[in-house]
């Protein structure tokens, strides 16, 4: 394992429930001075700037940050879909024969040429899992996502939210070591969202997966996460880590009435607000300087 240089002292203290396990927890993912730049028309755009993170095994890690700050890019790099421009990251191999990671992609990512069932079974089929096992697993998650009746439908026959649920069922079915979820519930109604929150927490609890979860909903972040990373906007940097101090299992409704809950949410909200204002400023500056140049 490579030495992780991220400044641990700088981090908030860990939550109550995790405190006891601090000594036994092992690092699952460590990201080290990671930077990602995109070139376009000769100009270089920095999407991620010097990111350092350590994520423990079994941690529910949430990323929040303004739109366009590089959340998706970070997840894609960790999934091996994009190369970092500099810096490095390392992921501890799974002990079991589980796949390393599965991603719920932002936006449409289910195959238009496969039925709902085939899409949900994709990962398992790639790993040549026995047919009967696939049937059980996929059947379970299609039922959980309310898609059983649509198993034979093709994506173009589904609504936006239904397509997103297929993508979730696909990732859950694959039973990976690390779940990478990029705004997985954004197109779902509150009720479906709640059902899937429960299912996600059940899976996480039972299989001790490491989860990386991107969301724009601070409520969702605080309700689900162990630890929340707040990112700055363009270029995306780590603004702060917030440890969520609530024990598990959490009673969502009860939680929301606690004053600490309001405090955590308010804290994150404030930091984000500041970020967005900053980025609006920056955007304006850039626009002005651009206008100035075009004169």
């Amino acid at each position, binding site marked *: 394992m490579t030495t992780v240089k991220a400044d641990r002292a700088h981090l908030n203290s860990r939550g109550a429930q995790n405190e006891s396990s601090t000594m036994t927890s092992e690092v699952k993912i460590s990201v080290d001075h990671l930077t990602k730049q995109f070139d376009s028309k000769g100009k270089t755009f920095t999407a991620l700037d010097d990111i350092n993170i350590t994520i423990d095994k079994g941690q529910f890690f949430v990323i929040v940050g303004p739109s366009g700050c590089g959340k998706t890019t970070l997840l*894609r790099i960790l*999934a*091996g*879909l994009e190369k970092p421009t500099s810096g490095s990251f390392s992921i501890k191999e799974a002990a079991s024969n589980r*796949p390393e*990671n*599965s*991603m719920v*992609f932002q*936006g*449409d*990512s289910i*195959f*238009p*040429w*496969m*039925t709902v069932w085939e899409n949900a079974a*994709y*990962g398992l*089929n*790639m*790993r040549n899992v026995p047919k009967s096992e696939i049937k059980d697993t996929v059947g379970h998650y299609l039922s959980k996502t309310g898609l059983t009746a649509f198993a034979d439908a*093709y*994506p*173009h026959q589904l609504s936006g939210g239904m397509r997103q649920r297929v993508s979730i069922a*696909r990732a859950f079915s*694959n039973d990976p070591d690390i779940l990478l979820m990029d705004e997985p519930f954004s197109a779902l109604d509150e009720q479906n969202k709640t059902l899937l929150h429960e299912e996600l927490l059940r899976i996480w609890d039972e299989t001790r997966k490491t989860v990386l979860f991107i969301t724009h909903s601070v409520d969702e972040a605080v309700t689900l996460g162990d630890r929340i990373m707040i990112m700055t906007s363009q270029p995306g940097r780590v603004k702060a880590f917030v440890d969520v101090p609530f024990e598990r299992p959490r009673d969502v409704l009860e939680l929301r009435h606690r004053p600490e809950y309001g405090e955590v949410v308010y804290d994150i909200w404030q930091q984000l607000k500041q970020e967005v204002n900053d980025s609006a400023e920056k955007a304006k500056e850039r626009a002005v300087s651009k206008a100035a140049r075009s004169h």
Partner: protein
Amino acid sequence: MTQTSAPLAAQVVNPARRSPKKNKFGVSDRVLAIGTPVVLLLIWEAFVHLGAIDARFFPAPSSIFMRMGELIASGELWMHMWASIQRLFYGFWLGLVPAIVLGVLMGLSRPIRSALSPLVSGTYPIPKSALLPLILLIFGLGEMSKVVMVAIGVFYPVVMNTMSGVVQVAPIYYDVSKNYGASKWKVFKTVAIPGAMPSIMTGIELGAGLGLILIAIAEMMGAQEGLGFMIWNAWQLFSVETMYVGIFVIAVMGYIIALFLAEVAKWVMPWKR
């Protein structure tokens, strides 16, 4: 107030959505498909009778159909057709399979694409008429040389359209397959081929047509039967009607192949309504 209980004109700008079998003029697609060629043939017939067209070289369709009747009755037409169809069949597969494999590989892998593009782009435009004598030398005068000629015709459009189709597949799908640990073969099977299928089918239609074009050239040499031979020989003998019968039969075959491929497309792409 706009009363829009049945919005019109949607099908004009909305090609991919299922639209009714009848269009706004109440004319069904099938009627149009059969009607257009029939109308053209009738105009041709009329022009011949009016003397507006040189009937020595463009004989009236009626006389062509009469000749066709004779050739069918004598079994000659069928003999030529059968010879060509067989060559077409074997040549089709011989060209198709390597074209799809190579097309997908070139689409998926940049080094393979770089290495093979010059060969494909360079050999494609070589006049097949010039190649024929060399093919005869290599494959002999028998069936094989004709089959190879068809295969060459099928190969190029399929390989190019497959490659371009594979490159056009939205990158997110390759990301998904990679993320879900698909082996190269599975990427091939579950992403590249189905994603490129519409392009591949167009390539196959173009390829089958080029195969037909080339078989006619191939049958001008070392053949005693086949539609190409029939057309060429008829022209040598200035048996104009017979030549048109041959051309007409090839045209009909081309259209039947297109219809058949459209059915195959529906079958291999069930996700396209």
